């Protein structure tokens, strides 16, 4: 075991990440004999002997607990079908709305083409179930939506939310980052929203540089001049 093995590195499908019996295969990997092999293109990472590969591109893979932003695609007799950019359909049931909704009045709450911030509370064979019962969730009417690659969401959020906080502070906008790569920006002025959007796109473009927060701070200083 060398030092390098602890570091993140880019791996491709079929590439051996580590050898030896004392490792466990995590997401994006499999064990072949003594080797842990990547089955994805992404960054390999080791944590307590568990090896996993974080994908760097491709579509959104939903997980329980994710906050996502989606668009109402269809209305059924007991809820809404929401497009969250995942291959499986996502469903928001009447029961998961924080207030009483008359079954005939679904469209008054949310209609075709409306946007909603929701949380994934269950993933099963039938599909994804959403809820808007917690705070900060629900239909959105104002602001703009920015679409980024879902794999870059962690960088937009930053360590413990540091990046998104920085952007909020610098632009004065309210920002909600959906794990599916849709980001909601709401500011007082159009200029503020565009500025926040520009900064988010800067973050995603530079997402692989180290010391990104410092770079973004510098970027803000330059832009504000």
């Amino acid at each position, binding site marked *: 075991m060398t030092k390098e093995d602890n570091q993140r590195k*880019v791996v*491709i*499908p*079929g*590439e051996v990440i580590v050898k030896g019996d004392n490792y466990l295969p995590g997401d*994006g990997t499999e064990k072949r004999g003594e080797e842990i092999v990547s*089955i*994805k*293109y*992404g960054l390999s990472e080791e944590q307590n002997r568990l090896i996993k590969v974080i*994908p*760097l*591109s*491709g*579509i959104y893979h939903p997980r329980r607990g994710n906050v996502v932003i989606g668009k109402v695609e269809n209305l059924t007799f007991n809820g809404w079908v929401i497009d969250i950019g995942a*291959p*499986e*359909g996502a469903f928001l049931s009447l029961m998961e709305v924080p207030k009483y909704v008359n079954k005939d009045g679904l469209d008054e709450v949310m209609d075709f083409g409306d946007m909603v911030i929701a949380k994934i509370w269950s993933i099963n064979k039938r599909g994804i179930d959403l809820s808007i019962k917690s705070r900060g969730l629900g239909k959105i009417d104002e602001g703009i939506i920015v679409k980024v690659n879902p*794999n870059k969401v962690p960088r937009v959020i930053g360590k413990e939310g540091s990046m998104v906080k920085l952007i909020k502070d610098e632009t004065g906008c309210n920002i909600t980052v959906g794990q599916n790569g849709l980001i909601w920006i709401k500011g007082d002025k159009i200029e503020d929203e565009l500025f926040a959007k520009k900064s988010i796109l800067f973050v995603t*473009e*530079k*997402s*692989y*540089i*180290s010391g990104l927060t410092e770079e973004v701070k510098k970027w803000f200083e330059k832009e504000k001049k």
Partner: protein
Amino acid sequence: MTKEFKRPDGRKVDELRKMSAKVGVVPNADGSAMFSFGDTIAIAAVYGPKKMHPQHKQNPEKGTLRCNYNMISFSVNDRIRPGMSRRSMEISEISKWALEPVLMIDNYPNMVVDVHINILQANASTRCAGINAACLALAHAGISMKNMVSSVSIGKLDKQLVVDVDKKEEDWEEGEGATDIPITMTSDDKITHLQLDGKITNKQLKDAIELARKACKEIYEVQKKALKESLGEEK
């Protein structure tokens, strides 16, 4: 292989044309790539995995891979009429068979992965360039794969085996003429695609497969570099 054999473009018998590869060439796609052997340029884009429509085509046990290979009209000297030909339909299916063994398609029940391959410029070996681009695009799309695949055409010109056939070689007429053998292999040396047009002895065909194995290693390195560099550039 004792006598010096002269290839039309002066390459050594086991020398590939200059290769290049790049991922992310189609921003709209979930994964995409370009791959070229000399003047043969292929691009591929992957959409999915996504729900299969119509529903009755869904397979609850595993996902479906669809390939769609085509050449653009001005990729060759004699303009190709736009649209699918019998040839492009067959190559689409061949490409699918070449790629499917490494895809962990069981992970995507009821879903479909679409791979679109377009040949922008042709100087022979287009299906091989297409498969190489498609494999890169699939990896770039984050699809689970056991391995990569690499594809190359081995030619027999008169009696001589050569690697990575170009158009002049494909049209070779001297002696025994040309035999074209496109082969695709996984990075752990398994064959996923093999075709042959022409005449060759059993023994020489075995040599051809060994030549392909070595060439695929070189192609694999180019593919690997393209995937790794797509992030390195931004580092």
